């Protein structure tokens, strides 16, 4: 049974149909890439699934529960963690505190007004594990805005991991990274995902990254799904080649 299932998911902005009747099913443990040219609707799809935007039609079900229409924090509480295309961090807090606030988000004592030492200890522990998984431990005490762009991207992923999600949604994790930084990020991501305990949906422009990481690829073009298959078949698909890949080998 799929962990996430979108049926006819649609989002219009006036006359523009940014996401057009998208059907997509993601299985547990799968790493799914969503690709497509700029403006294909990838980020809008993310925003509709995570509750940032309300859908105009259709619905998304997560672990057999309808999540469309829920506010963003409740979608997160169901166990969906995401990163943003433009890095979203707590700039003046240390990397550890960034991850700690993320880790605390789904702990029962998160709203403790006074005390809560055990909640804090537990979230610090989870935060440090997450930083470790993303190779950021040595920057734990460094304010987020002092990190390099590449490490900031990784920190945002660490925050998502610290949330202990069932589904991790990464919006262009290598966006703006140099070739070396991208290689390093992909290595770290690959290592992190090797356990197979996470289901991932990944929006990515860099085809090398996609073919290195993804089990299955959904191709969006002008809001519509034009292909949904394993990487080899997507690569061989004529329509995809015309719309997007432009002869990538």
């Amino acid at each position, binding site marked *: 049974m799929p962990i996430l299932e979108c049926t006819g998911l649609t989002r219009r902005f006036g006359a523009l149909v940014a996401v057009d009747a998208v059907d997509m099913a993601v299985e547990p443990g799968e790493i799914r890439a969503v690709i497509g040219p700029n403006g294909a609707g990838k980020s809008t799809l993310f925003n509709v699934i995570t509750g940032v935007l309300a859908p105009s039609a259709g619905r998304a079900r997560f672990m057999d529960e309808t999540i469309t229409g829920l506010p963003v*924090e409740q979608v997160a509480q169901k166990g969906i963690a995401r990163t943003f295309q433009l890095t979203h961090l707590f700039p003046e807090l240390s990397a550890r505190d960034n991850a700690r606030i*993320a880790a605390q988000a789904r702990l029962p004592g*998160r709203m403790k007004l006074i005390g809560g030492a055990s909640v804090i200890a537990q979230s610090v522990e989870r935060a440090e594990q997450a930083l470790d998984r993303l190779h950021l431990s040595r*920057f734990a005490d460094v304010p987020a805005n*002092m990190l390099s762009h590449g490490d900031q991207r990784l920190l945002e992923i660490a925050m998502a991991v610290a949330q202990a999600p069932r589904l991790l949604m990464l919006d262009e994790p290598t966006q703006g990274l140099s070739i070396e930084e991208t290689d390093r990020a992909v290595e770290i991501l690959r290592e992190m995902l090797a356990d197979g305990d996470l289901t991932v949906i990944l929006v990515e422009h860099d085809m090398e990254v996609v073919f290195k990481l993804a089990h299955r690829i959904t191709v969006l073009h002008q809001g519509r799904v034009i292909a949904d298959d394993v990487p080899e078949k997507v690569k061989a698909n004529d329509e995809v080649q015309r719309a997007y890949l432009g002869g990538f080998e």
Partner: protein
Amino acid sequence: MNWKTGFVITAFVACLVPLVSPNYMMTVIIEALIFGLFAMSLDLLVGYTRLYSFGHVAAYGLGAYTSALLLLHFNLPLPIAIILAVAISMAIATPIAWVCTRTHGVSFAMLTLAFAQLGYAILYGFKDFTGGSNGLAGIPRPEGPFGLDFFQSKIGYFYMVLFCLLGSYLLCRALVNSPFGAVLAGIRENEPKTAALGYNTRAYKRIVAIAAYGFGALAGALYAPFAGFASPELFFWLISGTVLIMVIVGGSGTLIGPIIGGVFFLMLENQLSEVTSLWPLIFGSIFIAFVMFAPQGIWGLLTARFTKPPVQPGSDRDGEAARAHS
């Protein structure tokens, strides 16, 4: 020195103040401590959540008038009246916080200002009850419970105010260091991200606004029985600005800084207003100087001397960290 030692030493020294201070100074000192408490309550919003309230005077006025009315009409023991006044003010603050926290930034500032002005208007609208522009005079300080009456003397009142200030500081400190406080920091730094992590940010903002109202109301509830009267001045919008300046000059986001800011300004005003009518000009100049040259405030300046700056990888001044980073 850890903070506990510092706290105990400060509390001890503060307890000795009445022994060395001339009696006429005690009035100013008590008012200064009350204002320090008031400024600290605003810091919960401004410094920790980056919610700029331009109407925090409403908390002060609400506490002052509620305690005044309770004491005048029910002759309750003073401590009971103060506690009740805080509880009632927090109850009134609940719907206000519910509305205000739907917004942020400038809209939040304007809404809080509007609610404070509403309170000001209500004072004039219900003259029979509030005394209108005359205010309420002759507020008693009834003794009890358990025959307590130490607060009927000025020195005794000083200790009660000091106790409230230190207790409030400990509570606020626990609040900002709790799991709840960590979320406030998240909201301050990046509210959309905090919501995306799964926090209902509005609920957190509501609670911190109600808490800030509670501590602000405590300051007001301490002031009215001390002064013996409550006037609409206690609801005047200018005080909201003054206390905001005290928070910023003292050092926002530190709790201690705003206390120092409040105490410092009230003492300075008292001393200077006796020798010059240009006092507001000096007040303004100090504010401008701090914003331009020391945005971290008085407390920031004091602590900067004792703490090392954070490691800044990538900065030219910190070669070692930069190397570790590459």
